[in-house]
């Protein structure tokens, strides 16, 4: 009951000093806004990265050449890699690939794009699906067929190519026929080689003949069941060591990647927490200042209320509630601002927008705490006002 009256009271008195109220709010809005915005963006990034694992599953590993290995020139042998499933128990399927940057010229347009040479198994492991035409199959060995990413296809269509499918384009020194377009994949932070949506894919045998970079440095593998990294590493080193002298390998699992991301997120959060805390302290001091001015201005009112029977604790809670109301108003505006910023971020990054409810809760909690903290001292001053002098002074 008292609380509701006090909240009305607070709103009334805050709106009677609008300019001052708004100025005090700016600090809180920026503080809460930046914290909420950053947390939301962090959530969006995390969500996006995890989505890839959801698509692909987490029983995927990336095996890459250890660049510190004794023989730097050596790469994975294609047939040996493809036969891995037969020799190493626990490996279900493998997808070696070659990546190479390639010049692409089309009309007046010149671009540098990523080209990928893959086997048929790549599409299955990466869960890539076809939007138009068909995927590359192992029967396309040594043929200049390619499939392209959805963004690339869209941009070709925009620049005047009506039928992308079946058209010929020159990538590097060779001309390829487009036989398919793949559906958009979620990118960033996962296991997939980057740039698939804007890139071109051909068969690995074609790639080994025409790419500037022809060695296989990396392959993906799907495990039958999740195994510890050291075991995998030992088995694979044993296998490849016998095949290719001087080749050592490095394994990274989905789990490792997720864990690494978690570490990064924690660091990120800590940094943001620090920035947010500083701006909130500054905002809190602003609110405290406004509240102190308000107490000084309303000494007479305090005197009258005391004469009419207000206890010191009534006066104190009135001013604390006023300060909390002020900070909560700032907090709510800040939360909206932060969410808007993260929405804009997600929109331009073309990532899924999610609202982090934990962040909203945190925003409300923190702004309440700032309100109590910065209202406490002014409220105590208000409660200590001597009613006699307050009533006497005009």
């Amino acid at each position: 009951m008292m609380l509701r009256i006090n909240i009305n009271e607070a709103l009334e008195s805050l709106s009677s000093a609008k300019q001052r109220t708004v100025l005090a709010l700016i600090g809180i809005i920026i503080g809460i806004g930046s914290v909420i915005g950053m947390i939301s963006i962090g959530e969006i990034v995390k969500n996006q990265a995890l989505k890839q694992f959801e698509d692909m599953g987490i029983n995927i590993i990336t095996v890459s050449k250890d660049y510190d290995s004794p023989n730097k020139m050596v790469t994975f042998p294609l047939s040996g890699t493809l036969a891995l499933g037969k020799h190493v128990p626990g490996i279900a399927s493998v997808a070696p690939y070659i990546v190479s940057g390639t010049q692409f010229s089309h009309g007046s347009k010149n671009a540098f794009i990523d080209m990928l040479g893959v086997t048929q198994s790549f599409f299955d492991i990466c869960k890539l699906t076809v939007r138009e035409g068909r995927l590359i199959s192992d029967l396309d060995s040594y043929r200049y067929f390619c499939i392209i990413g959805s963004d690339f296809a869209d941009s070709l269509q925009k620049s005047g190519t009506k039928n992308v499918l079946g058209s010929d384009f020159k990538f590097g020194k060779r001309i390829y026929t487009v036989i398919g377009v793949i559906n958009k994949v979620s990118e960033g932070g996962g296991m997939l080689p980057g740039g698939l949506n804007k890139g071109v894919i051909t068969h690995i045998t074609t790639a080994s003949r025409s790419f500037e970079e022809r060695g296989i440095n990396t392959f993906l593998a799907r495990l039958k069941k999740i195994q510890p990294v050291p075991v995998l590493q030992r088995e694979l080193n044993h296998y490849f060591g016998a095949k290719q002298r001087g080749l050592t390998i490095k394994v990274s699992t989905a789990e490792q990647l997720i864990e690494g991301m978690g570490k990064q997120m924690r660091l990120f959060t800590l940094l943001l927490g620090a920035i947010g805390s500083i701006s909130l302290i500054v905002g809190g001091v602003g609110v405290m200042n406004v509240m102190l001015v308000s107490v000084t201005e309303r000494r007479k009112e305090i005197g009258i209320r005391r004469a009419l029977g207000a206890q010191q604790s009534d006066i104190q809670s009135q001013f604390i509630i006023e300060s909390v109301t002020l900070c909560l108003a700032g907090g709510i505006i800040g939360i909206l601002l932060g969410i808007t910023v993260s929405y804009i971020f997600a929109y331009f990054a073309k990532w899924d927008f999610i609202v982090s409810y934990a962040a909203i809760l945190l925003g409300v909690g923190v702004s309440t705490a700032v309100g109590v903290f910065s209202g406490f001292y002014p409220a105590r001053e208000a409660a200590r006002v001597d009613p006699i002098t307050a009533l006497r002074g005009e």
Partner: protein
Amino acid sequence: MLRLIDIHKTYKVGPEEVEVLKGISMTIEKGELFAIIGPSGSGKSTLMNTMGLLDKPTSGSYFIEDTQITYDDDRVISTLRNRKIGFVFQSYNLLPRKTAIENVGIPLVYRGLKKNEIKEQSMEYLKRVEMDKWANYKPNELSGGQQQRVAIARALVGNPAIILADEPTGALDTQTGQEILTFFKQLNEKEGITFVIITHDPDIARQCKRMAELRDGVITDRQRKVDR
């Protein structure tokens, strides 16, 4: 009703101590219309603040309705002030942001009454001071006399034991002042409400049932019965 026994009050002004009340003893009975008269600086405001529990005497005892006042707990003192005392000030002391009816309701807010109860009772008291038509006006939209009526309603609303009025007519013209005083007299006679009026104006004091004169912190003229 109110009993003061040998009340002393000393203020520290810089290094010096100034004794404002020098042993005041007096009794005010229920249903009295009592005037305390004295020139400025005589200590009458301090006396009223002491009676109104806003100030704590340096020594002496004070009883309200046979309860001796102890000054160590703000909650107890504030509650007593809320329930037993109604103040009427020279400068009305209404809260400028609040309407007449809201101002009247403030003492009830601190009793923890419900909103509609507060509104109902405030309206009832506004009617008694004939200000119900002005319930939703703010103080600066009312004349001095009207504001003082609202302040009186506010003093009455909690049904206190006593109304303390500090120069209630001081800011009003003679005619309006007289109206307010007449109103006090009516309330006193018809409803038996106890009033203590502090004033420097002998004309006002003369209209009260009983008066005491305060000079330099002592009562010089002993609470004589005013002939009427």
